[in-house]
């Protein structure tokens, strides 16, 4: 038990086959007290949430709600081994995300026909995809854009690695082939199981990341539109998003989506609200770029899950619409600069500088923390954090209103993951090596999500290019939402084997090399 970074054997905190760990980590008095105070804050958020009878009712109605019991454990996983500014950065982000998800759940159940059944509220709700850029909602501050898939599948798997298995099985029992991506498969399973809240004036779907995601939406819209009577607009964002000759199409889709929302909610697009959001998006972009600039040096600060999970939430789901995230952006930057100026590091030894590429295993997002603690591999940035850096027009002028349509289209085309899985090999293959050079990386950890055709379709070329450039390429195969196919230890073993056999290295913390966390939250 020690205050110093890396002094503890973090693997000793695990109980073989247990859901939770033996005890909380001792981080020295100040950091432990800080961590405990944040734990209390999370418990307060959860306490407030369960105070409402409708939320308790939802706990019994929706199978996936049970996973939310594991919220504090999720935060603990991501803060493993962190001290000082790194610990604070993690809490700034995670606590805000938890608060945001709690509000999302509360709103969903408020409008849900089966739970709160607040019909007036429901008329102000626009349902959106989990993996969808919410740019078209930036000018509708009077409406609530709610994603049902975020709490039912996406966040659930972050909390409990086994959360999606039931829904994957439901979809396959219904006749879906078992070789599709488990993410849209689980979302379809929730819909087939009729296990999603029913509310909203209308819904906006989008062809987000892949063919599976596009087609999975068909299952959901069938229930929404034909059974629940909720009109659906399918926003078709072009796949070849870097090409000039698709931008007008993309812009027109945005115009059509806005007109659809106006028609079904009676709300009117608010340009003032839009430009406010655009300003906040620009701030988030500037902050993210500053963090990435720091990560190019010997003293990276905002990286690993601190970068990945927050960027996913802030860039896509928030899209400038919630001011609290602007405050968090500034606070994170302040903490990062403070640590950078003091030349601080998050682990006792940095051995390798790695770019994490591909689609990450969702039930094991804390893998990035493990990489650092176990092997001293610094995950400088990841594919899902390398998103658009375009500066949006933020002043309300007639010309900028037209530019704004194209900005929203650009953001929608460049939503997380799809900006790399679509758009041709240049954005997926070629730019990886540019980032390696930019970040002075000597290693690429390449998540091979086995059901992601866009990724695996470049397998051979990734290997060839890595050989040409002399960069260590470590494949980490997984099945995104389904730990039954490849477990957490199965993921770790792929790194362990590479590090021991190819790199001939010993782990920084041997207690983390093999963990019996198959049942762990």
């Amino acid at each position: 038990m020690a205050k110093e970074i890396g002094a503890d054997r973090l693997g000793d905190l695990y109980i073989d086959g247990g859901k939770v760990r033996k005890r909380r980590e001792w981080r020295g008095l100040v950091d432990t007290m800080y961590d405990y105070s944040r734990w209390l804050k999370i418990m307060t958020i959860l306490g407030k949430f369960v105070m409402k009878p409708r939320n308790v009712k939802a706990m019994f109605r929706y199978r996936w709600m049970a996973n939310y019991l594991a919220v504090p454990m999720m935060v603990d996983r991501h803060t493993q081994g962190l001290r000082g500014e790194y610990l604070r950065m993690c809490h700034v982000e995670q606590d805000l995300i938890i608060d945001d998800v709690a509000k999302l759940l509360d709103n969903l159940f408020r409008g849900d026909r089966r739970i709160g059944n607040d019909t007036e509220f429901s008329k102000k709700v626009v349902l959106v995809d989990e993996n969808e850029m919410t740019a078209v909602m930036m000018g509708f501050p009077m409406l609530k854009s709610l994603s049902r898939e975020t709490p039912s599948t996406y966040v659930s798997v972050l909390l409990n690695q086994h959360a999606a298995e039931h829904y994957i099985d439901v979809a396959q029992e219904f006749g879906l082939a078992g070789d599709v991506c488990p993410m849209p498969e689980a979302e379809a399973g929730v819909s087939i199981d009729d296990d999603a809240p029913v509310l909203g004036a209308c819904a906006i779907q989008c062809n987000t990341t892949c063919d599976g995601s596009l087609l999975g939406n068909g299952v959901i819209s069938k229930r929404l539109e034909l059974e629940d009577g909720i009109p659906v607009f399918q926003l078709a964002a072009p796949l070849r998003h870097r090409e000039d000759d698709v931008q007008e199409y993309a812009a027109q889709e945005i115009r059509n989506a806005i007109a659809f929302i106006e028609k079904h909610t009676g709300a009117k697009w608010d340009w003032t609200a839009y430009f406010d959001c655009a300003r906040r998006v620009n701030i988030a972009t500037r902050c993210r770029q500053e963090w990435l600039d720091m990560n190019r040096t010997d003293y990276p600060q905002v990286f690993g899950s601190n970068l990945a999970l927050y960027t996913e939430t802030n860039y896509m789901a928030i899209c400038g619409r919630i001011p609290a995230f602007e405050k968090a952006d500034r606070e994170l930057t302040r903490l990062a600069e403070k640590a950078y100026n003091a030349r601080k590091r998050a682990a006792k030894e940095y051995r390798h500088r790695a770019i994490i590429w591909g689609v990450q295993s969702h039930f094991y997002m804390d893998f990035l923390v493990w990489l650092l603690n176990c092997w001293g591999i610094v995950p400088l940035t990841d594919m899902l954090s390398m998103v658009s850096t375009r500066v949006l027009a933020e002043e309300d002028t007639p010309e900028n209103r037209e530019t704004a349509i194209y900005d929203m289209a650009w953001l929608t085309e460049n939503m997380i993951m799809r900006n790399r899985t679509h758009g041709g090999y240049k954005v997926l293959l070629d730019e990886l090596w540019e980032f390696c050079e930019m970040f002075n990386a000597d290693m690429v950890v390449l998540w091979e999500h086995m059901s992601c055709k866009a990724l695996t379709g470049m397998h051979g070329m990734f290997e060839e290019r890595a050989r040409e450039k002399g960069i260590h390429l470590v494949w980490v195969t997984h099945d995104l939402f389904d730990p039954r196919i490849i477990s957490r230890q199965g993921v770790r073993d792929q790194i362990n084997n590479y590090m021991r056999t190819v790199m001939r290295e010993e782990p920084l913390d041997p207690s983390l090399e093999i963990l019996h966390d198959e049942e762990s939250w």
Partner: protein
Amino acid sequence: MKDLKHLIFFEDLLQEANNVLVQQAQQEGKVCVAYVCENTPEPLLNLPGAFSARLRAPRTGSMEVATYYLTSFLCEYTRALLERAMEGGFNFADCIIAPDGCSMMNRCVENMELLQALGRDKPRFFHQYMEIPMKADDNGLNLYTLQCTNHILKPLQEHYGIDISDEAIRRAVAEHNRVCELIRAIGEFRKSDPAVITGYEFHVITLATYVAPKYLLIDKLEETLEELKTREPDKKSPFRARVLVVGSEVDDTDFIKLIEDSGAYVCGDRYCCGSLPGRDPIVLTEDEDALTQICRQYMLRGQCPRYMNTDKMQGRREYVNKLAREYNADGIIYEQMKFCDPWAYEKMLGAHVLREDFGYPVLAVDRPYAIASSGQMRTRVQAFVESMEIKKIQKGEQHG
């Protein structure tokens, strides 16, 4: 039934991608435009001076090298194409045009480009990728016409001097329509029971029109049509049920043969490389440019599951129902190539809707690219045929 006079000729065309008619057309100085997806408007690839060849990999064996590049999680069609490309089997093509129809096909062609597997010794060779609409609406149509202009017409003109005028497009449509009319007329013979053409024979003939220059096929198609008018069906039909096959790309004639050998007559072909709707003629009027009309008709008739708007999704199942009625199908076989995401979802939903909402017996199967004589598939089709027979008997008993 007596063998069709030209069946062996058509079958031979399917033995190699670089078949004798492709070679003949190239010797005549025509440009071979290779393509890989039904969403590429065929008449635009068949402008005067050019002809289209839909890529396939007949007699596929090992796909090990392509599997290294694409992994075993991509569909075998894409792997077979890449393998054949690396073997040099598509070097006859003068260019390749690939829409981003699905991720796998996109990656397949991108790998061909990165590996420089096509266009050896062809300095004017080009790869083109195009965006195609995912919804059938005005915005989609604008995109479609722009993409066809930028990624088909202009490159063909710039690289090979092909005439891309409205008049040239109309001439290509006329030739395309002649082939479509012949195929549809031949396909009409499948409606009668017993039919005078098997599903296998029809598939062979239809497939030939995708992989060989159309203008060189017209005389053989005309002769076949005339022959069918007087062809006598077998006295005792070997078939015990009629099925409509619906699903993803089928360029494997053995698959249709296997179904028919198992006792089910394939009366309709609603799959990619089939005639429904792939061989619907394109109706042109004089009051609008031909390109826009072609794109509109491709967009509206397209049955590809990548079309994501609700009307289109509903329309796909209604279209299957319409065909099943029109061709007197007793049941429907939904097929998908293994690892095909779009058809995995469409097969699942379509099978449920056709079974529960429209009342058809439905068999849903996934299959490899080249099925050969799969005992597993044969058993499934045989069981399906038996189940349809039992239903028929039970129906008969109910009606006295």
